[in-house]
């Protein structure tokens, strides 16, 4: 039975406004139509010359068409928000919302594209078939562990960037916050004992990214419902078949082969990254108290974190972050994904590597340090819009350095481009709103 959300004010407005506007994003022309004669340029017969030019050099589709700035937000609807497998149609409002954020914060021409597919092979085939039209793909709300296979395969087999925000976005923002939390508490990632509580898309990706960023695999412990991952766990062979990514972590992490659950994992740990599910009692005060002095605790479940931040601080945590906007240090994917794609698209990058994500995380962290790093300010907020072009430039620059860019500019040039693109998008929306093309929402909501 559909959940009744109408009691919630945001939900009520979302239902009312969505119906009023008939969706959140649409396609608007980029070229002038001075008279009907212009269609002889934009369409036939003139357009044939452009087609032939692209046929001669398919890469020129990035110059002659909107491909260079266009991404699809693709979902099979198998794990939408906290709602579960609601199907592709039900995921459409969410994907439209994501596309809107891409447009507004990143100047990216993103559109929602939920697809009906029968399995992961079908999803991979469908997304690959879209490549000629797109500059990139944002995968969204795909269930675990399917999402790992889909992302890994598409990253390997496509020549445009493919991004799964539930994995890389959350991991990237977590890394940015972690960099600053480590700085504040006088630690280095290489020497820190990190406990990842929860083994869904976000934390599996975090483990992989943290290791790429220099964390010692042997000092990482991953804890799931059955306890700490280690090679001799009863279900290890089952994992090798059903979730090879967790299996990989079981073989490579936890050098001391610690067994048990979260309590055993947290003894003497420096960092806890919890993405385990709705709290507030999943992490106990005594467990945080057993961590090292000046512990770093990220509690990312929404709407109720794995423990209340105040309890974590009372138990001795020095730096606490959550997924919520009403507490300090929100680990918010929206800080990263618009800028990641802005940078990747500006460089016409063929992929988004972990190195590019790490560059983005470092830039996010640097932005905060420049403004003033405190235990309550380890990550920027979405209102600090200047961070987006800065991160975009760092990403584009990394793409050039790694040899994945089709378009090589200097970092300053990328910064200027990103600023213009993002400003243009915001100006367009402001102009459309001021002129009434985008109407004010209905008074009653």
């Amino acid at each position: 039975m559909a959940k009744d959300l109408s009691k919630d004010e945001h939900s009520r407005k979302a239902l009312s406004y969505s119906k009023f506007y008939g969706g959140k994003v649409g396609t608007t022309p980029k070229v002038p139509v001075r008279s009907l004669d212009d269609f002889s340029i934009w369409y036939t017969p003139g357009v044939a010359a452009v087609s032939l030019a692209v046929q001669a050099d398919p890469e020129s589709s990035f110059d002659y068409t909107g491909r260079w700035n266009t991404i699809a937000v693709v979902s099979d609807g198998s794990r939408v928000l906290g709602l579960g497998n609601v199907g592709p149609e039900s995921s459409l409002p969410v994907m439209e919302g994501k596309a809107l954020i891409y447009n507004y914060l990143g100047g990216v021409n993103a559109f929602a594209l939920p697809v009906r597919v029968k399995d992961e092979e079908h999803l991979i085939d469908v997304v690959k078939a879209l490549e000629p039209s797109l500059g990139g793909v944002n995968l969204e709300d795909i269930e675990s562990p399917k999402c790992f296979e889909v992302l890994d395969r598409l990253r390997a087999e496509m020549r445009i960037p493919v991004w799964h925000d539930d994995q890389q976005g959350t991991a990237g923002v977590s890394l940015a916050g972690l960099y600053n939390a480590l700085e504040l508490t006088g630690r280095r990632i290489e020497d820190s004992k990190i406990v990842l509580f929860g083994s869904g898309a976000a934390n599996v990706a975090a483990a992989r990214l943290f290791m790429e960023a220099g964390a010692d695999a042997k000092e990482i412990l991953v804890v799931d419902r059955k306890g700490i991952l280690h090679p001799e766990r009863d279900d290890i062979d089952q994992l090798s078949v059903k979730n090879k990514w967790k299996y990989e972590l079981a073989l490579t992490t936890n050098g001391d082969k610690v067994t048990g659950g979260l309590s055993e994992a947290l003894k003497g740990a420096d960092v806890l990254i919890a993405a385990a599910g709705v709290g507030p009692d999943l992490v106990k005060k005594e467990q945080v108290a057993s961590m090292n002095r000046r512990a770093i605790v990220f509690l990312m479940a929404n709407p109720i974190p794995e423990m209340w931040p105040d309890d974590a601080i009372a138990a001795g945590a020095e730096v606490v972050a959550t997924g919520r906007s009403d507490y300090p240090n929100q680990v918010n994917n929206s800080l990263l994904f618009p800028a990641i794609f802005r940078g990747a698209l500006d460089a016409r990058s063929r992929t988004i590597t972990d190195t590019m994500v790490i560059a983005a995380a470092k830039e996010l962290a640097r932005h905060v340090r420049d403004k003033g790093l405190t235990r309550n300010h380890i990550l920027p907020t979405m209102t600090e819009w200047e961070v987006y072009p800065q991160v975009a430039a760092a990403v584009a620059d990394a793409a050039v350095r790694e040899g994945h860019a089709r378009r090589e500019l200097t970092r300053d040039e990328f910064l200027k481009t990103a600023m213009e693109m993002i400003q243009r998008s915001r100006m367009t929306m402001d102009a459309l709103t001021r002129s009434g093309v985008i109407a004010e929402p209905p008074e009653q909501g």
Partner: protein
Amino acid sequence: MDRVSIRRAAKEDVAAVADLVVRLKRLNNEFDPLFNVVNDARERAERYVSDSLGAKSALLIVATQGEKVIAFLRGEIRERLFYDPHMEGHITDMYVLPEFRRKQLGHDILQQGSDALIKMGAEIIVCELPTRNDIGFQFYSKRGFRRFAETFAHVPG
């Protein structure tokens, strides 16, 4: 850490190898319900291992670290009545404990097992895997094995 060594299995290894046999059969069950493991699998495994130790046509080797059995391979010589090569060394079971995987141990035990089967008269080395065991396929493919037969199953009713 103790060195890993590979040797022929002995009577004192029976219990440890039987445990690994059960682990292997349970792993197979992950690939297909037709590999559903019976309740008394542990007892059967112990008999299976003991019988293998006494059989002339069977091979049982183990890898150990210190006292601990960390991997095993069981094979047997089978006659291919109508075909050349005529004698096959058939690897029926092979299992490496997870924490010892990706350290060449699988490669080494397969190599030593194959060599021993050849000495017993094998002209080709053959192994069987559940159809969906992709990791197993990759392992054997990298070592020069290729698919040459398929098994089909139908459960009547």
